[in-house]
């Protein structure tokens, strides 16, 4: 069996492949990475485990977690894939805030002399193991808003025309990578899982304000229900958590107004 040592020190010998190679003069920072772990086959509830490890200021947190997983604690479980903030796999609560581990650099978490970093699973979704949560309720909400383009007219031979300004209307909302950072930072969603959540509303916005789409009314109706936009209490956690810098609260407010004007 692989040797597992906890706590551990690293990492001049073993350096993860993903970690950018250190120019020699960049110092390694000593870190205490506190992870809220949970193994459904052994634990009743989560337990904090601290890993002592070294990393460079420019390393991504995902590099640090990979390092722990690959060389010290292979059972540490979390999702990740692209490593640069485009696939939306690695949303977690880092130092008390939702972020993507791959878009968070060590130097933004600790001071120049190292320090402690806490990592927890995102909230409001069932923890399956360690930092990995059940995403199904999140995607259920996504599917509930009819997240697909609808235009029943026969398509023209070429493209449907759309002005640059109309295309720009979708610039923010279409940028979403469904990472769930927003929905799981929302204080309403934590306590009320039936709220569709900011991510689903952003997706609805994407179609509601698409000049080519014809199902605006149906989507606004979905947004108008008890589980829709009206549950949002403008807490802004979503906007602050979004790794794609989508002004989510603004978009939600636009949808609220659109529902209002539709019904008026």
């Amino acid at each position, binding site marked *: 069996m692989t040797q597992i040592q906890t706590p551990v020190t690293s990492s001049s010998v073993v350096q993860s492949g993903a970690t950018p190679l250190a120019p020699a003069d960049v110092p390694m920072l000593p870190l205490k990475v506190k992870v809220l772990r949970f193994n459904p086959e052994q634990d009743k509830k989560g337990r904090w485990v601290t890993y002592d490890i070294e990393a460079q200021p420019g390393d991504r947190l995902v590099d640090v977690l990979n390092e722990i997983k690959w060389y010290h604690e292979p059972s540490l479980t979390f999702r990740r894939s692209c490593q640069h903030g485009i696939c939306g796999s690695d949303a977690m609560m880092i130092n008390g805030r939702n972020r993507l581990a791959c878009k968070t650099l060590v130097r933004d978490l600790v001071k120049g002399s190292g320090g402690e970093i806490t990592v927890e699973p995102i909230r409001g979704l069932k923890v399956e193991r360690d930092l990995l949560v059940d995403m199904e309720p999140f995607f259920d909400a996504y599917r*509930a808003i009819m997240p697909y383009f609808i235009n029943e007219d026969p398509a023209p031979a070429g493209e449907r025309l759309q002005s640059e300004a109309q295309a720009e209307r979708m610039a923010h909302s279409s940028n979403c990578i469904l990472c769930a950072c927003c929905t799981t930072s929302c204080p309403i969603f934590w306590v009320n*899982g039936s709220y569709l959540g900011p991510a689903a509303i952003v997706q609805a916005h994407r179609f509601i304000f698409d000049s080519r789409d014809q199902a605006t009314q149906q989507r606004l109706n979905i947004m108008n229900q008890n*589980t829709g936009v*009206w549950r949002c209490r403008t807490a802004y956690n979503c906007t602050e958590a979004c790794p794609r810098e989508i002004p989510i609260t603004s978009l939600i407010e636009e949808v609220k107004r659109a529902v209002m004007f539709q019904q008026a």
Partner: protein
Amino acid sequence: MIKARTLSDARQQSHSNAELNWWIFMRISGLILVFLVLGHIYMTFIQVSEADATYVAVVNKLSNPAWKFYDWLILALALLHGANGARYSIEDYVRTRPDRAWIKGTFYTVIALLFAFGTVGLFSL
């Protein structure tokens, strides 16, 4: 509310404007309440002491129909506004169905009784 998991669930649930109307009501009543409540507080708490709100003082003040109406407006708007606000909280925090129904039922009854009590109080004087 049940969560809309499919399109047909969603459609079924989407025919009511209740939430929208409450949302608008919260804003309009809030706007009005700013003047009413802050005015009320200023007049009854800052200008005079709480200790001045004796039986006689209250009865005196309320003999004027304008004050009657003013206070009744606060009573109605604030109770409705507050009750609906509390409903938001109940729906958010109480997630099991039978509990929620009980709590809401009891709460609305209390609010209704208070409203009746207050109204009778205002207009019986």
